[in-house]
């Protein structure tokens, strides 16, 4: 009995040690059962404070509406030719900014108020396609293909601040419509997003 009591006491010590030392930092990446279902693509997503689908959708929506209302687009005699250049990612996250520009392009094209030229990344493939069909370079046609009335550029920025209990992330997505001939910025707008994450007071 004496030894049994001692065993229990020592076992408690060891179990405590085991529990402590095997405490894992696990990020919930492994060992979980999957349960796949369809979700609403437009539903608000607040899983983390990272730039997510809701931010992408709301940014594209706001900036596209603003651009379509600008007089350079709304009052143009005929839909201007626009080339979307890259949107720079200046944040702390690996954001696929191509997803933002693609979404904006689709929304603008659907409006019928602008015409789009192939962007820089795809221009090489367009050249290749032309070379297959024309043996002599047609400078006039090439010029039509490359000359844009306007160029859209932009930046995604973020400011992150954290205290003991609160994390604050501010995103600023800005776009500019630039006349490539003059360098004049004829339109610019921004979408601001702020996300605040609070730590639980007590938790696992």
């Amino acid at each position: 009995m004496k030894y049994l009591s001692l065993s229990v006491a020592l076992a408690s010590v060891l179990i405590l040690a085991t529990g402590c030392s095997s405490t894992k930092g696990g990020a919930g990446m492994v060992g979980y059962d999957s349960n796949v279902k369809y979700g609403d693509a437009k539903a608000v997503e607040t899983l983390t404070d990272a730039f997510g689908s809701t931010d992408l959708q709301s940014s594209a929506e706001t900036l596209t509406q603003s651009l379509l209302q600008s007089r350079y687009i709304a009052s143009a005699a005929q839909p201007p030719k626009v080339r979307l250049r890259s949107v720079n990612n200046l944040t702390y996250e690996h954001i696929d900014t191509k997803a933002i520009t693609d979404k904006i392009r689709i929304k603008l094209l659907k409006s019928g108020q602008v015409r789009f030229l192939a962007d820089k990344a795809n221009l090489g493939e367009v050249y290749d396609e032309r070379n297959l069909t024309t043996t002599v370079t047609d400078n006039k046609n090439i010029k039509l293909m490359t000359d844009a009335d306007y160029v859209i550029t932009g930046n995604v920025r973020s400011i992150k601040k954290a205290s003991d209990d609160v994390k604050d992330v501010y995103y600023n997505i800005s776009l500019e419509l630039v006349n490539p001939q003059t360098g004049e910025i004829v339109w610019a707008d921004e979408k601001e997003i702020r996300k605040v994450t609070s730590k639980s007071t007590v938790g696992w």
Partner: protein
Amino acid sequence: MFRFFIAAVITLYTSLHAAVLSTEQLRGGLSAQTFDKTLASLCADTSDDDEYWYWLNLARLQQANGDYNSSIASFEKAYAILDEYENRATISVRNIGSFVGSSLLSKGSETYFGKGYERALMHTLNAINYIMLRKVEGAAVEMRRMEQRQEFWLIESDEKIKQAAKDKATAAARDTSTDTVPTNYSMAALLNSPDIRNLLNNYQDPFSYTLGYIISEISGLSDATGDEGSVFLKRAIALNPNVTKTINSSKTSVSPEKLHVNIVVLSGIAPAMKIEKIRFPIFHAAEYTSIDLPSYTPPGNDLNRLTIANGPRTFTPPRLLKSDMMAYKTLSDEFPGELAKAAVRATTKGIAAKQANDHFGDLGGLLTSLFFDLGSSIADSGFRNWETLPNSGYLMNFEAKKGETISIILNDRQESFTLPKTGKGVFILVSYLTHDNIRIDYADY
């Protein structure tokens, strides 16, 4: 019955901590002959895939193997684990458990989440992965993360300093001395070294900031970020004035026959943390007692000589990344707290043994003491960290003619590299794991 119980507990405990590759096997298996097997074993060993150190070690080996996509994925796993830790509830059951375990039972009960310099350097190394994949914007993101990550470390360090003061007061109340570094402690001389004490801090390194400057320049985004590159460079120079010797290329575009050359050399393996048990006159009732303190194995496989030659020009890049110094500086800064905690652990053990002795006789006291030793030994054996972090990092930036050959002399080995004939610049990564396991890779832009 009792022996069976002990055996069962030990078996269970050992199985919980069994990693396929021990620290020694991992660090000793980096030569050309064994590297592939070591990497394959680490990849296949999923027993520790919820541990921060596992993903860091794997990411480093994958990078040294030229598998940059896999290395990025591994670093992301490490980030996720660290992010989860940093976002835990203010009063977290796991943190309390780890704290109680490390305060009362064993240093090895702590779960490893890296030190400030390691948390910064994982982003620096991952930035190199992105450059090698020609994703400069991604590399720039990593350099911003490198700086951002330091904020949490500062909060955590501040808490550690406060806790150290409390631990010291507790130890003093129990009439235990924690004012001096034990002379038989293997790190005693290093902790008192002026080179270590004079380091500006334990988490910022000039290598990362110089690389941040170069990435900013390559990406062409420096202006858009409010001259982020210049800010990085100023910080690098403040940390080590020799940084000025590494930047020899003009900021403006070079003549058409030339290109920017950026060479990064990562060499050796940094000191690996271990737990050292020493006898120390701390507990008056027992005269001498055994305390466990964090300690380091020496760095390995590092370079003694690095020279880069391009025609008549010869460069000797200064050592900008000094992981060993940062590890020792961290230990030096945290040592008062560690010693106080070790004293509390030793006292706890003494008190428990005394109570067991009073209740169960001499055998009870002896067994309790043995159990504590056994438990802490087992816990300590599972205490791992980033054991493959490069010990040194060198960086050199200059202009050279396209198509020229440059020589990189690594100790007694000379490697040649022919520069690309097109492009604005080239980023060359030299991974020196051992004298016979060197990989030179490049990305042009």
